[in-house]
């Protein structure tokens, strides 16, 4: 089985979010970048398929040269090879087009994405990619088993879960649950050393239009200070929730 894992390179979850140039650009100053957490669950699941079912795992990112450390980290975790499509990701449709091109050329059986990346939170790349490839698609995937050409997946639904069966080629949008938190891999020294010698191919992007663009950013308005209520006066809390906030 050939697996492609799409890796988004995102600010670490503790990052302070600021903007520059008249709030038109994200301020990368002092920001650490990581593998998008939803993708990390998918990558770990892919490595599981590699170890248990001899799958071959390629990771791919659409981004500038500055994203290579993130791809090297994925290689250190165990991916066999990496691809970087040399373009700045400006729109989900554009990214999906680039990934579709890579996927077609590599004949992958399974394509694992995270259900959304934690910077622009578009939640659109996995579904668009599946549509562009005309492949089967399971979103919000929290469990995946593959046997030959058949796949069984569990997806989260609002207020429960659903078990589905389908066939390869398959695209999934994965999230926490795909593997347990404790099973996430941290690169060890050996992994880091071997990652240096693994193949990282740089491809030029194919022509694709943007359908959306981010024109400006805003930060939420500052909050007024918390109203503290004494533990001995819980009636006051109920009063505030009822009469002031009007939520009970």
């Amino acid at each position, binding site marked *: 089985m050939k697996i492609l894992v799409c890796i988004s390179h995102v600010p670490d*979850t*503790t990052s302070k*979010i600021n*903007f520059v140039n008249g709030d038109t650009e994200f301020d990368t100053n002092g920001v650490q970048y990581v593998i998008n*957490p939803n993708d990390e669950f998918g990558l770990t699941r892919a490595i599981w398929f590699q170890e248990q079912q001899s799958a071959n795992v390629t990771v791919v990112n659409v981004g500038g040269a500055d994203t290579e450390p993130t791809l090297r980290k994925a290689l250190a975790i165990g991916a066999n090879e990496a691809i970087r499509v040399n373009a700045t990701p400006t729109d*989900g*449709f554009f990214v*999906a087009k680039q990934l579709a091109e890579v996927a077609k050329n590599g004949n992958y059986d399974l394509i694992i994405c995270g259900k959304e990346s*934690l*910077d*622009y*939170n*578009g*939640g*659109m790349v*996995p*579904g*668009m990619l*599946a*549509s562009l490839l005309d492949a*089967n*698609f399971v*979103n*919000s995937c*929290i469990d995946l088993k593959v046997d030959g050409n058949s796949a069984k997946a569990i997806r*989260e639904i*609002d*207020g*429960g*879960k*659903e*078990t*589905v*069966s*389908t066939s390869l080629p398959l695209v999934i*949008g994965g999230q*926490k649950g795909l593997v347990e938190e404790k099973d996430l891999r941290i690169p060890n020294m050996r992994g880091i050393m071997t990652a240096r010698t693994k193949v990282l191919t740089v491809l030029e992007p194919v022509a694709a239009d943007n*359908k*959306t*663009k*981010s*024109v*400006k*950013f*805003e930060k*939420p308005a500052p909050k007024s200070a*918390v*109203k*503290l209520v*004494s*533990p001995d006066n*819980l009636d006051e*809390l*109920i009063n*505030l*929730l*009822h009469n002031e*906030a009007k*939520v*009970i």
Partner: protein
Amino acid sequence: MSLLIYAESVEGKFKKVAFELASYAKKVAESLGTSVTAVTVNAGDVSELSKYGVDKVLKVTNDKLKNFNAKAYADVIKQAAQKENAKVILLSSTTDSLYLAPIVAVGLDAGFASNVVGLPLSTSPFQVKRNSFSNKAFTITEIESDVKVLGLAKNSYGVFESASSTSQEDFSPSLNDADFNVKVESVDRTTGKVTIADADIVVSGGRGLKGPENWGMIEELASVLGAATACSKPVSDLGWRPHSEHVGQTGKPVATNLYIAVGISGAIQHIAGINSSKVKVVINSDAEAPFFKVADYGVVGDAFDIVPRLTQKLKEFKAQNS
């Protein structure tokens, strides 16, 4: 030209988000000088939509669509949009709608903006404000394509009545076998409990509760308020509560009217997931807990003392006010 909404239903009944979406669509349609058409799938009685300004309903009734199926449902919406010559297609942000929207967008060669939090800032060029950076910021997104797909964030607009006389039309889109390549084997829905996705109030517990055996008091508080229960990430990682209750940047987003956090420190990743909630109440023994910086109301003290007393007082309040 028209504006199309997908009015989501479950087991024949509309979800509340369908009414929020209709209310929102009515307003957008006014600014575009057009009407609102809703497409429904196995929704039973659709007359309720007329309360919220829907002018026309395309009713799809089809046994094959009994279970949600993203590709087939996307095909339905796409054909409805083409039939109505809809240039703006609106969906909500439920798990199902988020699954569908990108497929619809590719099918219609449309740009898609998710997590939209208000009316378009401008319709020419078409610009919307959306939650991004895990609710730590907003992005103003311009959709440049002729056809536009929008996903409205939950509780970001509200439900507003606006009576209209609604026409109904049966609609039978053509579906092909490939639409059903992903087959539903079983559905496992939590019954008899308010779920985070539907709740207007959420009561959430963190590591400060010390262990799963202490969740009874969280459940009781939730039950008095008709609320859903939730938890912080370490609580679900430790197996005290199911993963489906983990809220935050890497868990579920919560956009409720009231969020009560008990024994949760307020780490940046937790706050990111609950920031869009309107009113936040924090109960924590540590007056320095970061959660107090983003809370509206706070009680500094021991949860084991406060929560049972608060529950008791709320019971009395409810008895007097119902």
